[in-house]
């Protein structure tokens, strides 16, 4: 069996950033396994601009951003096998993969970085009633067909879900001459970036129906009509509010799920909320020597954050391979109550920190003019005023080693209504 110091599964922005991070930390025996015909991942189909302001200091399209990374990978001479689908991953860090170039291969890695990205939730996962005609696509699949192959999914379009992919596709289809009749969102707020609401919907007068959902799908061979209903505060359709739209295409942008079947096979513990691996501050999963970054760890809206996380995973894997991590006590990081959806990392080793910890979290609901509280073992330690907090936008908070050394068991986060005086 071949051996390798570091195998990275997935050659999207997370995987490529991880490879570069590990290389710059001194690791040379690196192998990226990517199932597509070229590295780049989801970026390759995201032809809109808006990527990279933080990493490269300029605004790039997805393909341009990917090309920056592939250029660096080639320059450094990092090995990337494309067309290579990883079939199995085990806790002892052996992997099986298959590719047209190499056939069936097994490799034993000393460290592994998971960077498999995420997949879209299909119609079945949300259970819309009605017939099963052609013309219903997940937004990302439609994006891939349209932007890589020039195949137009339809002419009269409705979009369910106001996540960024749905918003971007509303504009894209409009520019290509389709009529987008509306975007429906189950929640009372959009899950997409504000800039996308402005430049993808408002610029083209596409209506956004908040607190609405699709309650019926009609048509035999091809989609003919959808029925839209308003929902109540419990997200149940309100009878009598139905209205129909004659469309030939329905795009679903109803959420992304980290792609973790390989992680599960290796016995890695997943977090019920992120649906990605549980990790510590080094992005190490519950299996020593296996790290995770990017959308496989938790769904990101901004590629720059994915790349930063990838770099960190690469540096951590390098540290694992060279010095290793000393045994050390760990504390938990978690939501204090249901105002916070999740906190990442979920565990921290305060004594072995050599740099500050960047906590990432998402709120569970939309909040305005609130206070973010950080609690150490149940006691409020820090309060930060926040003007707007939205579940769609990942928040970050950096704490230094000194902030964490005296935590005995748990660091917790919550949103408090008003400002609570620390005295």
């Amino acid at each position: 069996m071949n051996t390798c110091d570091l195998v990275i599964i997935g050659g999207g922005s997370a995987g490529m950033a991880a490879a570069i991070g590990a290389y710059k930390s001194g690791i040379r025996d690196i192998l990226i396994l990517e199932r597509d015909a070229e590295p780049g991942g989801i970026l390759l189909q995201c032809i809109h601009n808006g990527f990279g302001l933080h990493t490269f200091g300029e605004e790039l399209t997805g393909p341009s951003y990917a090309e920056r990374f592939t250029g660096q990978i080639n320059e450094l001479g990092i090995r990337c096998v494309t067309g290579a689908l990883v079939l199995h991953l085990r806790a002892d860090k052996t992997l099986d993969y298959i590719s047209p170039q190499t056939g069936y291969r097994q490799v034993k890695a000393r460290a592994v970085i998971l960077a498999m990205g995420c997949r879209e939730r299909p119609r079945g996962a949300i259970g819309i009633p009605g017939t099963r005609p052609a013309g219903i696509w997940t937004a990302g699949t439609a994006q891939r067909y349209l932007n890589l192959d020039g195949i137009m999914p339809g002419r009269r379009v409705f979009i369910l879900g106001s996540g960024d992919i749905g918003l971007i596709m509303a504009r894209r289809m409009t520019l290509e001459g389709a009529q987008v009749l509306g975007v429906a969102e189950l929640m009372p707020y959009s899950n997409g970036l504000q800039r996308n609401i402005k430049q993808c919907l408002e610029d083209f007068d596409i209506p956004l129906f908040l607190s609405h959902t699709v309650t019926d799908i009609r048509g035999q061979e091809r989609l003919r009509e959808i029925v839209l209903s308003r929902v109540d505060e419990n997200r149940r359709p309100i009878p009598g509010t139905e209205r129909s739209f004659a469309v030939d295409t329905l795009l679903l942008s109803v959420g992304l799920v980290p792609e973790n079947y390989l992680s599960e096979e290796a016995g890695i513990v997943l977090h019920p909320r992120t649906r990605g691996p549980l990790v510590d501050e080094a992005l190490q999963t519950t299996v020593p020597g296996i790290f995770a970054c990017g959308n496989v760890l938790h769904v990101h809206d901004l590629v720059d954050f994915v790349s930063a996380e990838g770099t960190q995973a690469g540096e951590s894997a390098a540290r694992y391979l060279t010095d290793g991590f000393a045994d050390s006590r760990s504390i938990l990081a978690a939501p204090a109550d249901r105002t916070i959806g999740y906190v990442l990392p979920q565990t921290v080793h305060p004594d072995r920190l050599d740099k500050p910890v960047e906590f990432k979290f998402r709120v569970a609901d939309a909040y305005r003019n609130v206070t973010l509280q950080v609690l150490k073992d149940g006691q409020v330690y820090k309060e930060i005023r926040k003007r707007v907090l939205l579940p769609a936008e990942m928040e970050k908070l950096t704490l230094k080693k000194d902030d964490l050394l005296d935590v005995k068991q748990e660091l917790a986060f919550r949103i408090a209504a008003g400002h609570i005086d620390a005295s």
Partner: protein
Amino acid sequence: MKKELTCIICPMGCRLEADCETTENGALAIRSVTGNTCPRGERYARAELSYPERTVTSTVVLQGGRYRRLPVITSAPIPKDRIFDVMEEIRAVSVCAPVKIHDIIIENVCGLGVNIIASRSL
């Protein structure tokens, strides 16, 4: 009067507030902009309220490449009300591989002084 805008320059999407007044000759004068995290936000607010522009991305037909479409982008923002004119020119074009990133695909699109360029190599 106050006008609220969302900055679209970067994904931060800062919520801006422009304090403006209508001058005697009917034009909009912007006294101040708040809510921006960086100077680009103020520039955006001023431009958006007087002369809105957008960057346009799309694809053109590609022959002999890995895919059947090549992604393209305007080399600079164009007036918002010319987006569909620009799209029409983009749709009429077909190119052959190989193409390098930033190659000019359409020069001076719609006479706007802006080029349509490739946004990747293929």
